[in-house]
């Protein structure tokens, strides 16, 4: 399905922000809207920040607090001067006539704004997140309308963001949705068990192929070869040496830092005598 328009890359912080403002909406409001900030590239639009804008919506009219939007944008620009208004978001599944009006307002602020809908009411069973850009349609000269064409969405993370999101994912598993921050060795254990899970999946696939239950795929086979070759074959003696020297380094550093700590504790006691 070929889609006209740039690819929209969204950072998870934007989606979390939208969900949070939906949860905090005023009584009686069925949806929230807000501005999207980000950067525009030649073929893609990267959405990195957002803020919600108070608005009132009824059957026949809609009022958006534009002063507020302008103010917030100024404040945000102070912190990150590279972000520009690239569009707006709304929670809810459909696009209503009011959306067209709001979109018109935003086209005054940004060239070709995008419109993001986040279905936080979960109408279709899951949270569908879609992006649109407006296009003119109709007969030129006579009735002209506006059509929203969908765009492809990609989720993009910084490395550190990825690690943060991984940690947040683990909060899903506990019933109280909480998770403490673990410390040192247990983290290594967690990472190792994750790799172990992945290896089990791969092994199960291999077993299936061997017993004929699944068809062998060449590209997967090539990846498997890479995987096995990644463990370098080093002679036992060399490896022993490398391992021992590394372990010695680490032990020495541990010893020195323990010594330093004992030293400053002693110094403290002497001074306070």
């Amino acid at each position, binding site marked *: 399905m070929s889609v006209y328009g740039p690819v929209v890359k969204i*950072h*998870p*912080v934007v*989606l*979390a*922000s939208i*969900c*949070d*403002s939906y*949860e*905090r909406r*005023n009584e009686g409001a069925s949806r929230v809207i807000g501005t999207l900030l980000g950067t525009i590239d030649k073929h893609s639009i990267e959405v990195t*920040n957002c*803020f919600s*804008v108070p608005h009132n919506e009824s059957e026949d009219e809609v009022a958006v607090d534009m002063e*507020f939007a302008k103010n917030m944008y100024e*404040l945000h620009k*102070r*912190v*990150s001067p590279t972000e520009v208004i690239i569009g707006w978001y709304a929670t809810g599944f459909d696009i209503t006539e009011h959306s067209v009006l709001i979109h018109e307002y935003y086209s005054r602020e940004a060239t070709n704004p995008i419109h993001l809908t986040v279905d*936080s009411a979960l109408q279709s069973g*899951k*949270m569908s997140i879609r992006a649109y850009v407006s296009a003119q349609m109709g007969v030129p000269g006579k009735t002209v309308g506006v059509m929203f064409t969908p765009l492809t969405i990609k989720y993009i993370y*910084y490395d*550190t*963001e*990825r*690690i*943060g*999101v*991984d*940690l*947040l*994912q683990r*909060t*899903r598993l506990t019933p*109280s*949705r*909480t*998770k*403490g*921050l673990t*410390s*040192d*060795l247990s*983290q*290594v254990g967690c990472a190792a068990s994750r790799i172990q899970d992945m290896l089990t999946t791969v092994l199960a696939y291999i077993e299936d192929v061997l017993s004929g239950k699944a068809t062998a795929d060449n590209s997967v086979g090539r990846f498997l070869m890479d995987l096995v070759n990644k463990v370098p074959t*080093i002679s036992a003696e060399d*490896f022993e040496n490398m*391992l021992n020297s590394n372990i010695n380094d*680490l*032990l020495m*550093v*541990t010893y020195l*830092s*323990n010594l330093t*700590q004992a030293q*400053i504790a002693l*110094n403290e006691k002497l001074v*306070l005598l």
Partner: protein
Amino acid sequence: MATRKESSSSPSAPMASTGGTLDSPVKQIQIEGLVVLKIIKHYQEEGQGSEVVQGVLLGLVVEDRLEITNCFPFPQHTEDDADFDEVQYQMEMMRSLRHVNIDHLHVGWYQSTFYGSFVSRALLDSQFSYQHAIEESVVLIYDPIKTAQGSLSLKAYRLTPKLMEICKEKDFTPEGLKKASVGFENMFEEVPIVIKNSHLISVLLWDLEDKSTVSDKHELLNLSSSNHLEKSLQLLMDRVDDLNQDIVKYNTYSRNLSKQQQQKHQYLQRRQQENVQRQSRGEPPLPEEDLTKLFKPPLPPPRMDTLLIAGQVNNYCQNVKEFTSQNLGKLFMAEALQGHN
């Protein structure tokens, strides 16, 4: 070290055990996932060049828990923004956030750090003013380099009540510190953190997991550690040098003090002898002169810097130990992998 409140370096010490020994009004911190993501993003986008990025935490206090529900970043201090009013920015931001029903109660601030070097005078002053104004405020320290290595490093600190008293009175002499018996371990207390997400965010996370590719970077299991270790040790050495200089200064001071005491003593004795002689000769005794005018006592050096440096050195050592224990584990795993070949 009975009052060690920082997380110990033993591999399996759970965080919850430190919570029970705190005697402050805040025993636990609950952070929303949104705040974590915002802090990470702020550093990533704005903090590459300069040292630290800072921002304000918003939330509320529920019983003995401090819930942090939102945050906003502070712009950097640049030279061409000389007339920039921080307070005004903050006020405007909070007013606007109130319109959209975001909690506008100031509960603390966050700062990024470089290899764990955050124990400084500036931090102490800021946290003191915050804690003075708002009883339960904390400072969240985010370490981006440690996070990039595989595990989110976010710690929450408060000043101990003893340290608060000292800062209030501004009495940084050795006697003052001795009175309050504050050591570098009693400066900051760490509050355990728990991350909590609402149901809607959980749904979002499920969706994200579906749509995103499996992360192919397992930084945490990376075996190459020498770069990070070198930098940490370099910083540690610098600090130890500073501490050394400070100790030398203090030593010279105490030596001067004792020399002066001796001189005073000698002077007094000579005076007394002279007076006795004069009395035996029938002359009026010499008046007792004011000793403090003759012998000006040397100024005791302020101990606050020493305390801070010691605290910083302690922090570095803790980080280094954590790092080495992780790496030892990884090395043993690599050995196991080779052993089966």
